[in-house]
């Protein structure tokens, strides 16, 4: 498929702009004027529309099929949310317009804040962070501010060895040192290991519960006690909240700061990589440090409060990704207290799939799972020389998006599967049948896996060549023809990210 730049022809144009007579000429000094126009594509509207329709056709979304990416919560994105967010009364608001002219928008934000507090079992909320990672960073900044305010010097944050890569990255960005705690054979945090690592220099713990293994930490109360006794805080990575809405609240588990992924639990569409939303909810003693402005009720109206002398400042422009708030709010209002049923069915679907798959793949932790579970393809590798990567690619030929692979790092040849609550039982059965068939193919016809996928617009992609050549934009007449270079070894077993 050609790039839009390759479809460009001089003289074509899609835009039509107003014209006005007798406007003054711009007084732009010559030394600031652009000399050469940017080489943007020149296409008319029909070609533009076709181009993007073709790009859409070459993209697999939740709308296309089953998408069991562990820790991503690829649930159905309701269409009504798109309708409501497109209302000009939301879409065409300027964030700096007078608050009195945006009362409906402020009310959406305030209501969402209250709802997230209720779900978390905590007291105050900021919707500002733009994504889960930014929520993590904001939470760590809150920790810094909290301890600085108390005159306590703490320099270390502890994460689990099963943690998502954003956790240690956020710890570093916040200027903290990182310590890891191990997971025991049951899939819980190793309490003995933990006790040796928590001391008066510990600022806190970053944990998701259930963990990335899909397991609820059975000792969470003891874990919380260990940190609180040392005067430290607990941070909840909300990536796996879909398992426990209305069933267990992070505040009750002992967490002091929570971030929620609106693009996971609360159905903001992923958009090919974003946008998302990472609001944070905190225990009341952390409220003074939240980013500004706060949305506060003022009688029967709402206003923006900038008078927060202890606030950490701003992590993002304005109030956060407002369009994401509207969609998540609409999603939650469609469920109300029945969010609990959403979580129950997420966990039911996962356990059903686990029951159907565990005889064909290795199950590292023999427990009921929560909303996701991790299998290992290690036996297939040992006996037939095919890997989790090969299984993933072959699943594409069966019409499914593969699960997350090579994560968490503690499980070799990991396959992390999260079906979510919006799938039918038949889809789960079809997926289980496909996984069973692939396990059999691994034994009988392993080349089918190694050559997979066979039915997509491209075959396996050469990632080594991509990294070495680093061609990251179209270079026009200098654009290289990479097909003239040799194919390097098959795509590496990189952790495929979540």
């Amino acid at each position: 498929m050609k790039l839009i730049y390759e479809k460009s022809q001089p003289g074509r144009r899609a835009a039509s702009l107003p014209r006005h007579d007798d406007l003054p000429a711009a007084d732009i000094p010559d030394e600031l004027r652009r000399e050469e126009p940017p080489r943007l594509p020149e296409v008319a509207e029909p070609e533009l529309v076709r181009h993007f329709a073709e790009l859409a056709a070459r993209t697999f979304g939740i709308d296309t099929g089953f998408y069991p990416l562990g820790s991503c919560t690829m649930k159905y994105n309701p269409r009504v949310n798109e309708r409501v967010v497109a209302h000009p009364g939301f879409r065409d608001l300027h964030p700096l317009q007078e608050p009195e002219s945006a009362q409906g928008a402020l009310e959406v934000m305030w209501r969402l804040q209250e709802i997230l507090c209720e779900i978390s079992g905590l007291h105050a909320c900021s919707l500002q962070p733009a994504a889960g990672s930014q929520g993590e960073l904001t939470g760590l900044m809150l920790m810094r501010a909290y301890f600085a305010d108390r005159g306590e010097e703490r320099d270390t944050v502890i994460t689990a060895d099963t943690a998502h890569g954003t956790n240690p990255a956020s710890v570093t960005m916040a200027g903290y040192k990182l310590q890891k705690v191990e997971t025991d054979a049951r899939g819980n945090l190793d309490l003995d290991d933990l006790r040796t690592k928590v001391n008066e220099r510990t600022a806190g713990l970053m944990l998701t519960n259930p963990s990335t293994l899909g397991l609820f930490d059975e000792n969470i109360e003891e874990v919380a006690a260990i940190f609180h006794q040392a005067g430290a805080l607990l941070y909840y990575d909300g990536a796996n909240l879909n398992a426990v809405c209305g069933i267990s609240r992070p505040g009750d588990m002992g967490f002091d700061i929570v971030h929620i992924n609106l693009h996971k639990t609360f159905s903001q569409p992923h958009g090919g990589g974003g946008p998302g939303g990472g609001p944070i909810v905190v225990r009341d003693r952390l409220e003074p440090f939240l980013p500004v402005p706060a949305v506060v009720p003022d009688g029967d109206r709402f206003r923006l409060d900038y008078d927060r002398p202890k606030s950490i400042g701003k992590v993002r422009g304005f109030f956060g990704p407002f369009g994401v708030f509207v969609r998540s709010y609409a999603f939650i209002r469609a469920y109300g207290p029945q969010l609990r049923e959403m979580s129950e069915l997420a966990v039911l679907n996962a356990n059903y799939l686990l029951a159907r798959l565990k005889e064909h793949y290795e199950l590292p932790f023999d427990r009921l799972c929560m909303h996701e579970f991790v299998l290992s393809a290690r036996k297939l590798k040992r006996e037939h020389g095919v890997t989790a990567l090969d299984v993933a690619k072959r699943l594409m030929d069966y019409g499914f998006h593969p699960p997350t692979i090579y994560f968490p790092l503690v499980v070799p040849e990991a396959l992390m599967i999260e079906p979510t609550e919006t799938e039918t039982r038949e889809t789960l059965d079809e997926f289980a049948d496909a996984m069973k068939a692939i396990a059999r193919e691994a034994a009988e016809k392993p080349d089918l896996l190694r050559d997979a996928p066979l039915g997509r617009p491209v075959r396996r992609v050469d990632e080594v060549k991509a990294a070495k050549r680093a061609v990251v934009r179209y270079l026009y007449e200098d654009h290289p023809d990479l097909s003239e270079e040799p194919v390097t070894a098959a795509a590496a077993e990189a952790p495929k990210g979540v």
Partner: protein
Amino acid sequence: MPRPTARSSRSNRQTRLRYLSLTEGDRERMLAAIGVASVDELFSDIPEGVRYRGRLDLEPPLPEQELVAHLTELAERNVAAGEELSFLGAGIYDHYVPAVVDSVMAQGQLLTAYTPYQPELSQGVLQAIFEYQTAICELTGMDVANASGYDGTTVAADACFVAKHATGRSKVVLCETLNPQVRQVVKTYAPGFGLEVVEIPHRDGTTDPDELADAARDAACVIFQQPNFFGCLEPAPDLAAAANEAEALPVAHVDPISLGVLEAPGKYGCALAIGEGQGAGNHQAFGGPHYGFLAARQDYIRRMPGRIIGETTDTEGERAYVLTLQTREQHIRREKATSNITTNQTLLAIGGLVYLTWLGPHGLRDVGELCTGLAGYAKNRLGLPLLFPNRATFKEFAVRVGRPADDVVAAAREQGVNPGYPLRRDYSGMEDALLVCVTEKRTPDDIDRLAEVLAEVAA
């Protein structure tokens, strides 16, 4: 507490089943296959002490039409652009968003796809981002752009992080004419990054290159904005030269709409170019979601935060696109990552790509010229003293309204006009300064109306 505005509906199977497919029969079969008697048993690992046995204190579920009515009622309580004649800018802009942008962003596969970690299933998204990266590089005159940052503020923090690691220095210099929220976000990130932040004041609406040269000594980078927050044109090539002299990285925070008319930062010596993409292809949406862009010279490619799409081939030699240089990113590098960013603003950036494609190079120039032409007309027509009469401007300019600007805004709004942004909210000593923004969506008649209203309400 405000009363709920929707009529509660008696909860019934219909309201809750619409996104959930499992029937009673399904559940029974599945529980049997798992080997448990009830759904409740699936949660038996949760200690009773943290088990929530209550009922979430949330309003009952709304069937779809009531949901729409409720959200509509909330939306209608806002004064949207179009209901009020607005000249409000200051970082978010009422530029025209063509219909093709909305329709592309609504396409189900693009809307509901995840990050393209499985390239064979995501060639569409990957190619779109590659095309977006190309467009940003073309606009800014740079060699590499990432797949988007959160917004125009966080990309400034990202740029400081890049500069710190590239130079080994930890001082960053911000111009006072840089958007106040951008500066505030950099200062929020600074303690964690170990940055010392220094600001240099404006001189009659722009930045003095000699003062910048002084401040840039021992600095990792200098960030200036073009056009700046006052709408004025900075002596950008001189600022970049001053930074380069001091071996600090020049970082230009630029308005994408201006780049058909103003020179690309890469052409006058900048190391990085960043900015807020909203004006190019996204609705204002009360502040987000939008997309930040970050582009750099080739030297900095390995320090870039965020995702980068690269071209390659598949095993048959066919051209293909893939996430590349992933060793910079959190899922591999973990605590040594160049950033923790994972979810970014891809769909909004694709909207930006569609917009820039719709415009083409001549369209981008035309929009820029329309904005400056209309702004020039407004400057003359308003007849109010300019705050910075000696400065060339782009699409925004500051006027003096003779009395506190907030009062003027309130009075003008009573006549259905929002005349602009009171600069006193961010700058001291600017009590009567109003920042007026004129985009291509305003007409000369609109400007005449603004002039009429201001003539009445200004002092």
